[in-house]
């Protein structure tokens, strides 16, 4: 019986962990917006309904105007995939031949089967199967139903949840706990807000830059660059690689001018982001050592694939912010 309950608890925790985490993140991001309107004299509950209506309209607009463009770019990509495969295969074979010519003593392995074996599902991977895997029933259900509902209640009654939790804290730790919770939540709010602003800025600038120089799939690449920017150090590479890949797919093919243009756009975006956006939006709240980033991204990738890689660094940063605050408070309360 106990084992059954435990198994059920673990199962539900596993099932609900991602939607709950997403809800907390959304609540932290939306809280300042709700507060802003509440300050202007609107009732919190009405503001929440207003924001939800606005988000539904926004989602509908995205579905009508952006998604078709995105799908058409993806379909276009899928349609041209065999040609790209042939062109990349040709380039690799040529590279292998050149290397073999220049280094006759070294045995160059056959790279094509090697790459195929390294790509998950490389033998026969197609867009449809990836989409099928991603949109499993529960993922969709949690996204559409659980996340908005939990986010709504966290925004409406978040302070009551914190209050109920604090009521259970022993008197000795009450003052420390209330200050600690407040500090952690404030730090997380500013960190997440900063990261989102930074990612959005990179996404918009990359999209605009690539559109100006006429690179195909600029919208998809811009989104990838924006999201990829959540990973420090690797962000620029994540934006650059698909952009260079898109250059290969151009009707004119791979040209030095096109590559230089793409590199200029990516470097310019990174310069603007690093000089103006990041210091203002994120500041120096979390400075991760490159080694931590590499280990984090590797472990994240092993555990959760691409999604794991993407959330590894923000998650590590959140943990570090929490520990920094915890350490300073425990020290000031003479607990450590």
């Amino acid at each position, binding site marked *: 019986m106990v084992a059954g309950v435990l198994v059920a608890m673990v199962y539900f925790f596993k099932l609900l962990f991602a939607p709950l985490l997403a809800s907390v993140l959304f609540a932290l991001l939306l809280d*300042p917006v709700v*507060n802003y309107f*509440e*300050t202007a004299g609107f009732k*919190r509950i009405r503001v929440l309904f207003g924001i939800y209506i606005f988000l539904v309209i926004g989602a509908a607009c995205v579905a009508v105007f952006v998604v078709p463009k995105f799908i058409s770019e993806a379909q276009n990509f899928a349609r041209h995939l065999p040609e790209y495969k042939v062109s990349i295969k040709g380039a690799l074979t040529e590279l292998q031949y050149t290397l073999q010519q220049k280094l006759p003593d070294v045995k160059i392995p056959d790279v094509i089967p090697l790459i195929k074996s390294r790509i998950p599902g490389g033998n026969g991977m197609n867009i449809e199967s990836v989409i099928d895997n991603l949109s499993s029933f529960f993922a969709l259900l949690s996204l559409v139903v659980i996340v908005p509902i939990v986010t709504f209640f966290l925004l409406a009654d978040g*302070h*009551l949840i914190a*209050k*109920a939790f*604090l*009521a*259970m804290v022993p*008197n*000795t730790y*009450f*003052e*420390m706990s*209330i*200050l600690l*919770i*407040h500090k952690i939540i404030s730090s997380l709010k500013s960190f997440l807000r900063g990261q989102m602003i930074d990612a959005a800025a990179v996404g918009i600038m990359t999209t605009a830059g690539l559109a100006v120089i006429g690179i195909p799939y600029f919208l998809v690449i811009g989104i990838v660059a924006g999201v990829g920017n959540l990973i420090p150090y690797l962000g620029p590479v994540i934006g650059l690689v698909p952009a260079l890949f898109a250059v290969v797919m151009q009707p004119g093919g791979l040209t030095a001018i096109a590559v230089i243009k793409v590199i200029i756009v990516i470097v310019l975006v990174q310069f603007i982001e690093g000089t103006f956006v990041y210091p203002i939006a994120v500041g120096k709240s979390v400075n991760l050592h490159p080694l931590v980033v590499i280990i984090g991204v590797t472990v994240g990738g092993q555990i959760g694939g691409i999604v794991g890689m993407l959330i590894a660094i923000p998650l590590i940063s959140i943990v570090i912010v929490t520990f920094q605050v915890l350490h300073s*408070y425990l020290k*000031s*309360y*003479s607990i450590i």
Partner: protein
Amino acid sequence: MDNPIWTYIFGAPKEKRLTVELMKSLPAFEGLSGNELLTVERTIHLRKYGAGEVIFNEDMPGAGMYIIQSGEVSIIKKIDERNDVELAVVRERSFFGELALIDEMPRSATAKALKDTVLYAFCKPDLENIMDRNPRLASKIIMNVARLICKRLVQANENLEVIKKKLLQHGDICEK
């Protein structure tokens, strides 16, 4: 219904009314409307302390002020490693620790319950939450607390003058 979660979900109108009445009588919440008092009531924390239990310690970071619903609290200042002096005894319908609402500086004294005591804690994070959502209400509370601090500063200056005079008189006597 002792579980705080059920209390927060289903509410406790009578307790709420009593708390609001208590808050109304305190200078820190002077001039607040009924709705504003209810807003503050929703954020404050009910705490129960046994006789002899420490509410906060001197030199620790302060979180906020406490309103005494019932019981008595002794405010104690450390003189040296072994000796303490009782600065005041705060009784029902009074409050203490309001300096921590403005700044997280270390507590200037220790607060200890003299008997079983029920307190309402109104902490700096609660005030900051109100500031985010209702700056008008927060500014009223801050102004009230500032007025209280001013009054106490004037009182402290007067006491200092009296002590100075006494010391001067004492000095004159010693010289003679």
